[in-house]
Every structure is written in C-alpha cells, then in structure tokens.
C-alpha cells in the first residue's frame, strides 16, 4: 500500500500500471527525491542509530521509481527486509548496489566508498568541541550536516550546481534557525526525538530534489568491484591473530576496582562487591592465565600479554607512561578502563597517559540518554561488519560512563552509548555527578563508549565505563560479551589498523572518484572496501559467538518478562522484583553466573549443566524430554516462580507433565510491618500478625520425580529410579521468587553488615549447585531473647545520626513509646547476658550474634561494661537495609 501510494504521488501512475507497462516511466524529480532521500535516511540510520530513518530507507528500497523487473523488485524487497532484521549497516552495500542497478554509476561508486568511510569516521565528530556563535554545541547538529553533505558529494556529478549549493547551505540555515530557537520553543525533548531528527536530516535533500534530476550514466560491469572486494576480504581474513598468553591487571595505581579483594560467601559490602575479583577469574579462564602487576618498577610482561590499566586513582609516573607506550609499540596490548566525572582523579591520570602518547583524551563528564537515565543501546547484528563487538541485537545496559574529548586519528569505535547527552561533573557534590538534566547546551551525540586503535605493532583499547565489570554486575551476559569482544579486538592489532586506514582511504577515494574514470577507481574501491569490511568482520564477528560453559560461566540464568536485573533501585518500580543481588552472589561460591534477560535467548538445556530460571514465562520452560535427559545426566535446574505464577495454567500444565501438583502451605507469621500510614519506627511500625500463605509443589506417587528436600519456599526433587550414590541432578521449584528479590534480601550496594536474611538467602540458593547442605531458613545467629530487667534508666534514639527522642524509664507511668523501649532494653540485656560476653572493660563489645526484637526488627548489639563486668551502657544499631525501616537507627540505653 505504501509502495502504491508513493508511486501514485511521485510517478503519477498506479503501481500496477507502472510495473506492467514500460510506458509508465517515472518523472525525473521523483527519482531525485527517492535517490537523495534514501541516501540521507541511510546516513542518519547508520550514524545516529535512528530507527525511523532505518524504516524509511528500507521502505524506499522496493518502491524505486524506475522500471524494474519483478525479480529485481522482489530482490529489493528482500533487501529491505534484511535491513530491518540485520540492521541499517547493510545499507552501506545495498544503497550503492541499488544506485548502480538504476543506472547512476558515479553516485553508486562514490556512495560505495563514502558511506562506509563516513560510518567509521563519524565518531570523530564528537571531538568537535565548537560552539562558535551557536548556543548548542556544533557536534549536536552533525547529523543534519552529514545527512545533507554526504548526498551532495555522492550526487556531485549528476545534479546541478544550484542543487549542490542548496545542499551545502540548507543545513547551515537549519542549524542557525534551531540555534536561535533554542532560547524559545526548541526543547531537548524535541531535538532528541527520533522523528524530528529524521525530518531535520532529510528536509534539505527533500527540498533540493524538487528542482533536481539525477542524470543516468552507463554502469560498468559489477565484477570490476565485486572481485577485488572479495580478494581484499579474503586476504585480510587470512591475517593471523596475536593471541594472549596472559592478562595482567595493573594494581600499582590505586585500589579502585582492585582484583585483590576477596569475594567469597562471607564477603559483604562495597569493598567486595565493587571490585574486579570476578573479572580476574574470567580473564584467567579466557586466555589461560591472569596475574597482577604490582609496582611501576617491575618489568612489563611479554608483548604477548594484555595489560589492563583500570581506573587508576594514583597518577602514573612519566617514566612508566613512556615504558608502557614503548611496550605497546613493540607489540604489547593495553586495555584502559575509565569512568565518569574524573571519579577519584582517574580521568586525569588516564589522560596523562593517553593524551601525550596516543593522541586521545577523555572528558570529565557523565553520559546519559535523552531522559537523563543510563543508556541502553541495541547494536544490530550487521554492526559486526564494522568492528562493533556487541552487535547481537541485544540491549546493552550501560551504567554511567564518560565521553571522549579527542579521538586518536586511527581510532575505531568498538561500542557506543547510542544518542546521549554529555554533562560535566559537579564537584560540589559528593558523587561528582551533575543534575542529569537534559539541556541543549550539553552535547547530544551518538557517543563512543569503547575505542580501539593500533599503535606500532601493538594496540590500545579504552572503555569509558568501569561499572559493568564489577563483581556485582559482571554476571550480565552483555558485560561478558564486552570483555570477550575487547580481548578479541586487541588480539588483532593489524585488523584495527587496516579498518581505520581503510576508512580514511575509502573516503578520499570516494571523493576522488567523482573526477576519475570509473574503470580506474572501481577496482581500487572494491579492494579497499573488501579489506576494510574483512578487518571489521574479523573484529566484530565475536558478537555472533556464544558463551562457553566452564570458560565464561558455570550457572546459566534466564529471567522472565517480569523479573528485573537492575543495579539502581530507581529503575525498579514498587511491586517489580529485582534479582541482581541474589544472582551476583552466586559468584561468591565460584558459580560464575551469566544472566540473560527475557527475549535475548531461548534457553537450550545442553548449553549448561546448571540453570536458574527466575520468573520464567511458560515459553521459556524446557520441554519434558529435554528436562528428563538433563536431570539424568546430573544437571541441576532451579525454577523460581513468582507467587502470581501459581495460577498460570501453562505453568501448571508444565508441572502436571512431571506429576507435580500445587497446594497452599499456610502458617502464622509475625513481621515488622506498618501499623499506620506514617511508616516510621516511632509510632508507625510494629509487629504485625498475619498468615503467610505460600504455594508449594508436591509429587504424585506415580511421578518420575522423587521428593528430596522441601520447605515452604523451595521443593527439590530427583529423578527416579533413586540410585546411591545419587546420579540424577536436582530440579528445585519455588513459588516464592519474591523471597529472593532485592526487596527481601537487600541490594548490591549493601554495606559490610548485611541483613541476616540476605546472608541466608545467598547461601540457600548457592547450596543447590554446590552440593552443600541446605542452610536453616531461620539463621542461627539471629536470636530472640525474653526480656530480663536491666538497670539502665535512660535512653536516646537517633535516626540517621540525628537525635529523635530521649527519655527516662518510670516503672509505673511509662507511656506506650517508653514502654516499648523498656522492653527493648530488657531484651537486649537478656541477649547480652546469654550470647555476648564482654571483651574489655570500658570498651565497646560488638556482639557477633544479632538481636531479633519482638517486633521483628533486626539489631546489631554493642555494649560497655564496668571493670566488675556490669553493663553500663547498651546500644542497638539498625542499619537501614536490615529490616524494612529504611533509616539507620541507634538506640542507646544508659544512665
């Protein structure tokens, strides 16, 4: 219908007429419109990741306003589909081909080189740090300029001078108008809108097409281009890799994201979670060896090693910088990990190395999307042709990274954030972040997130966000992919050089092609294009490879559509379940999880021995026969369903296949809950009696599954017949997934004093994979104590360090609040007597066990004794994530 409409508008004939009779030739300006707009849209689609532009370019393909046979038109239609499925990068080859087929030889030749060159060199526009008279950074407008100027160069020989001048001046006028409008009606939400950007980008070419005709010329045979291209591609593909014998982590410039911290079952807090211990293990498994570089004076490793300089909080000496640069020039490979807003001075320290020695500079800023949130780009699979290392059509959730101020000449973009704002840091605030407010004065660009370039015989890659590889986040599939991708890219310094050099040569050749005979330029263009795409594919093909069990992961995690894996609680709505903490904690038990979000991949049981499904959709549930075979082979499966899924008929049917039925397990429970809408500890919270109703599974006697161990939350089964020693794996089913969510057990940012529940749940889930006895559901170190009179007559209550309440106990006339604290004092006194012996008189004794108050609030307990061992003061401390209170409370009892 769309094709018919376009033909009727522009060709003044119906599609049927035009396709069935050669008399119905299109008008010249119709073809001009088509040609200019398809090129402009393609440019926008590949440089600005604009979805509307991709759709427009793809839609224009099958409606080419020229006489075409049915076969050709069907091929065009298939090409359009491939663009939509595989990505707009295919347009770099398709557009020149279509122009050639429609008899525009020179535009075809020029676009053949220029489009690819443009895409590879476009990231350099982010280095254009020019405002001039404009109120908006010029780089924010680069999409308008390239979308008009590139078609001008491509159609240079076949359109009039007036059209050319118009194509060069119209975008400039547009930019000036927009810049003036930024003080009035133009808002960030308008300029960042994909549809608006498409209109702004295509407008100059659409206007020019009204008074242009694209003259046709004789097209040389296709083989002049294709054969050299294939030769170039094959030649580059034969260049050998330079694999790594080891990965060395620099630990001589500060302990930020150290690889030396412990990350085990008893490791809690940000000094364990917010480090690279897991990355160190992954590196070891990936290349066979990982080690630590401890001080600058130590000799650098062999040039067959990868050195990782990660967010250096201490400066690098000039001598070391020079030594490192020479090492790279001799063939060493360097991976530099940077972060936002010069956090802990890391940007300054990295820039000192990169600017002087490699011509690259990082901004002290933070990058975020059009709404002020972290970027989540999706790189289509065809991006792998151009060296993109995560081109797998999956979302990549960046945390908050920096942008580039200056790219090296031979820099190749390996990853991007997608269209994003760059905001300088605010050093008046503790976290160095600015306000995260989209504003037009900040640069809005498809910013690079990782860059690679060759230097001498070696290569360097820089990644601009450090958080993805922290222990708490590395379980996500995309962050593993990024690590493998960067390692793979750095194993190919020659390909990096060819890709970057090829981009420059292609650009120059394409422009020169307008002035030279095609039989000279086409074979050269083909050869260079083949080399460029060959090297791009060598680097980017890692995007299409799979994670390997034992090397990249041990436990494969798949989440359903309602389960989230976020690190910022602001991204999770109340009522949603987030599971980052429990999944990341599997790493503490050497289980190296890898997690796929819903829709990224259909689980296939042969990919892994151990599986964790969190709130899986029925479509993700493995088939009966596959599950049976998996269990028979000793594989373990854990399914954490949400309570709501207990009524899902598809889930119930799947259980029934196994001879499992569901039933309620009901028990009384006491919780620390809200008793009034205020929700505060003082007056608004208290013990709440309720019934805890959980759905559990049980097996029919005829079921192939034999009950192994069960409680209210989890039921485990093995496969019959039972053998000793056990050969079957476990299948564990729960309808209490919520009890493993961050809301229940705490988030990844929890401090070194974890909630008892968090510690217990981490061990519980891990126990299914490590063949460890299942821990008690009630932690033994969380103790309730019957009140016992303790002679401390006064109390003080602090919330987040601020005094909220103070009082004296009067045995007869206590009000309800005072009575509450008297009871709490007596519980604490009893607890200390039985579970917490003093260390030294007059010093604080911190009890290792925790007190569980009558109202189900968890307390750390500390106390001081006199020289004769009597209690002289007690302090109860509730850290904000221990219970549901949300604040830190200190309750002190004394005189």
């Amino acid at each position, binding site marked *: 219908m769309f094709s018919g409409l376009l033909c009727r508008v522009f060709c003044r004939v119906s599609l049927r007429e035009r396709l069935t009779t050669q008399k119905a030739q299109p008008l010249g300006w119709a073809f001009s419109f088509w040609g200019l707009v398809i090129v402009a849209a393609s440019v926008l689609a590949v440089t600005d990741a604009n979805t509307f532009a991709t759709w427009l370019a793809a839609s224009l393909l099958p409606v080419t306003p020229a006489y075409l046979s049915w076969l050709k038109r069907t091929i065009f239609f298939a090409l359009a589909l491939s663009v939509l499925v595989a990505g707009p990068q295919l347009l770099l080859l398709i557009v020149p081909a279509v122009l050639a087929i429609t008899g525009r030889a020179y535009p075809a030749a020029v676009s053949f080189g220029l489009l690819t060159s443009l895409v590879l060199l476009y990231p350099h526009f982010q280095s254009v740090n020019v405002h001039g008279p404009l109120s908006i950074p010029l780089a924010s407008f680069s999409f308008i300029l390239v979308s008009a100027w590139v078609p001008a160069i491509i159609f240079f020989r076949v359109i009039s001078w007036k059209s050319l001048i118009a194509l060069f001046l119209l975008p400039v006028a547009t930019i000036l108008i927009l810049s003036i409008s930024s003080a009035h009606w133009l808002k960030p939400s308008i300029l960042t809108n994909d549809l608006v950007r498409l209109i702004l980008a295509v407008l100059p070419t659409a206007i020019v097409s009204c008074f242009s005709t694209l003259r046709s010329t004789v097209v040389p045979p296709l083989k002049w281009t294709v054969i050299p291209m294939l030769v170039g591609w094959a030649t580059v593909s034969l260049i050998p890799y330079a694999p790594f014998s080891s990965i060395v982590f620099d630990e001589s410039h500060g302990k930020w994201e150290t690889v030396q911290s412990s990350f085990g079952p008893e490791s809690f807090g940000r000094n364990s979670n917010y480090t690279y211990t897991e990355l160190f293990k992954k590196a070891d498994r990936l290349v066979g060896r990982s080690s630590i570089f401890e001080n600058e004076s130590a000799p650098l490793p062999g040039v067959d090693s990868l050195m990782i300089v990660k967010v250096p*909080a201490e400066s690098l000496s000039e001598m070391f910088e020079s030594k490192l640069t020479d090492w790279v020039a001799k063939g060493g490979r360097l991976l530099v990990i940077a972060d936002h807003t010069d956090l802990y001075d890391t940007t300054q320290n990295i820039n000192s190395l990169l600017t002087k020695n490699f011509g690259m500079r990082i901004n002290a800023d933070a990058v975020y999307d059009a709404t002020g949130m972290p970027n989540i780009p999706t790189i289509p699979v065809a991006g792998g042709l151009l060296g993109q290392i995560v081109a797998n059509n999956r979302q990549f959730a960046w945390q908050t990274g920096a942008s580039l101020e200056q790219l090296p000449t031979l820099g190749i973009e390996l990853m991007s954030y997608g269209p994003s704002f760059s905001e300088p840091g605010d050093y008046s605030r503790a976290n160095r972040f600015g306000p995260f407010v989209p504003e037009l004065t900040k640069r809005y660009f498809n910013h690079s997130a990782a860059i690679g370039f060759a230097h001498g015989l070696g290569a360097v890659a820089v990644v601009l966000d450090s958080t993805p590889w922290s222990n708490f986040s590395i379980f996500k599939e995309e962050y593993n992919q990024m690590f493998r991708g960067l390692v793979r890219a750095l194993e190919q310094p020659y390909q990096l050089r060819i890709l970057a050099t090829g981009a420059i040569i292609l650009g120059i050749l394409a422009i020169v092609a307008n002035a030279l005979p095609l039989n000279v330029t086409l074979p050269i263009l083909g050869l260079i294009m083949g080399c460029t795409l060959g090297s791009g594919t060598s680097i980017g093909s890692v995007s299409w490879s799979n994670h390997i069990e034992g090397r990249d992961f041990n436990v494969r995690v798949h989440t359903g559509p309602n389960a989230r894996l976020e690190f910022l609680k602001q991204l999770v709505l109340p009522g949603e379940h987030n599971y980052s903490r429990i999944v990341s904690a599997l790493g503490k038990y050497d289980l190296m999880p890898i997690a796929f979000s819903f829709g990224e991949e259909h689980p296939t049981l042969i990919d892994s021995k151990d599986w964790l499904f969190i709130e899986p959709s029925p479509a993700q549930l493995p088939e009966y026969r596959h599950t049976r075979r998996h269990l028979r082979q000793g594989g373990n499966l854990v399914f954490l369903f949400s309570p709501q899924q207990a009524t899902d008929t598809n889930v119930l049917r799947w259980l029934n296949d196994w001879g499992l039925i569901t039933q309620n397990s009901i028990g009384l429970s006491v919780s620390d809950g809200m008793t009034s809408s205020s929700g505060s500890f003082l007056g608004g919270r208290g013990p709440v009696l309720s019934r805890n109703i959980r759905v559990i599974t049980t097996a029919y006697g005829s079921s192939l599954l034999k009950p192994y161990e069960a409680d209210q939350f989890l039921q485990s089964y093995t496969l019959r017949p039972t053998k000793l020693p056990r050969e079957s794996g476990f299948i564990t089913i729960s309808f209490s997934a919520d009890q493993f969510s961050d809301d229940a057990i705490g988030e990844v*940012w929890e401090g070194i004093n974890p909630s008892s529940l968090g510690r217990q749940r981490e061990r519980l889930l891990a126990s299914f994979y490590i063949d460890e006895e299942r821990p008690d559901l009630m932690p033994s170190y969380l103790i309730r104590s019957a009140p016992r009179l303790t002679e401390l007559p006064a109390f*003080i209550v602090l919330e*987040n360090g601020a005094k909220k309440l103070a009082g004296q106990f009067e045995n007869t006339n206590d009000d309800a609040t005072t009575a509450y604290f008297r009871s709490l004092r007596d519980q604490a006194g009893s607890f200390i007597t039985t579970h917490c012996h003093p260390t030294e008189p007059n*010093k604080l004794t911190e009890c290792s066990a925790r007190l569980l108050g009558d109202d189900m609030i968890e307390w750390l307990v500390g106390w001081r004794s006199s020289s004769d061992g009597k209690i002289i003061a007690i302090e109860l*401390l509730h850290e904000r994530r221990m219970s549901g209170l949300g604040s830190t409370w200190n309750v002190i009892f004394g005189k």
Partner: protein
Amino acid sequence: MRVTRLLQTFFLTIAFSLSFNALAVGLISQAQSAATAEINGLGAPDSQFVLETQAEETENIMLNELVLSSVGDQNVDEINQRSTGCSTGCSTGCSTGCSTGCSVGCSVGCSVGCR
C-alpha cells in the same frame, strides 16, 4: 636603582613560583589522599555505634554527656555510582518521594525540585 628593582622582581618571581608550586603539590597530594581515603572507605561500615566513638575510660556512661554528632549522619547520603537516590540527580528526597516516577519523570523534576 633599576638593578635593585630587577633583583626585587626576580626574587619575588622565584618566591611566588616556589609557593605556587608548593601549593599545587600540596593540593595534588591532598586530592590523592582524599581519593585513597574514599576508596578505602568502601570497606568501612555504613553506620557506627555512638558508644564506639566515646572516651574509653568512663565507668559511668551518662547519656546526656554523649557526643551524638560523633557518628555524623550515618552515611545517609552514601554515594556510590548512582546508588542511593542519585541516579537521576535527585538525591535522597527523590528515591522515596518519586518512587514511581524516578525512572522516567524524575529526571527533570527531581533534579530541580528534589535536591
């Protein structure tokens, strides 16, 4: 006369350069210590016992003599990446008040209204 002035200028210049240099070196070293302290602080507990921070020799702890400010604000604004409420620039106020909107709407509203 001219020579004296020249000498004065020369010595003044040297004195200024040295003091600026010393100041710069001092600042750099201060910044490095601050960064190191912050990184090491990641291993510190989020909150503290008030009793831990008081003088040790006291036999009788009188609550009205305790230095309550010794625990600060118990790291209520603990900052790591965008963790506690800072993800959208909306600090503590937003993470509670804008719970539903934080992910989308608060990017503008919070940074202005909730800081």
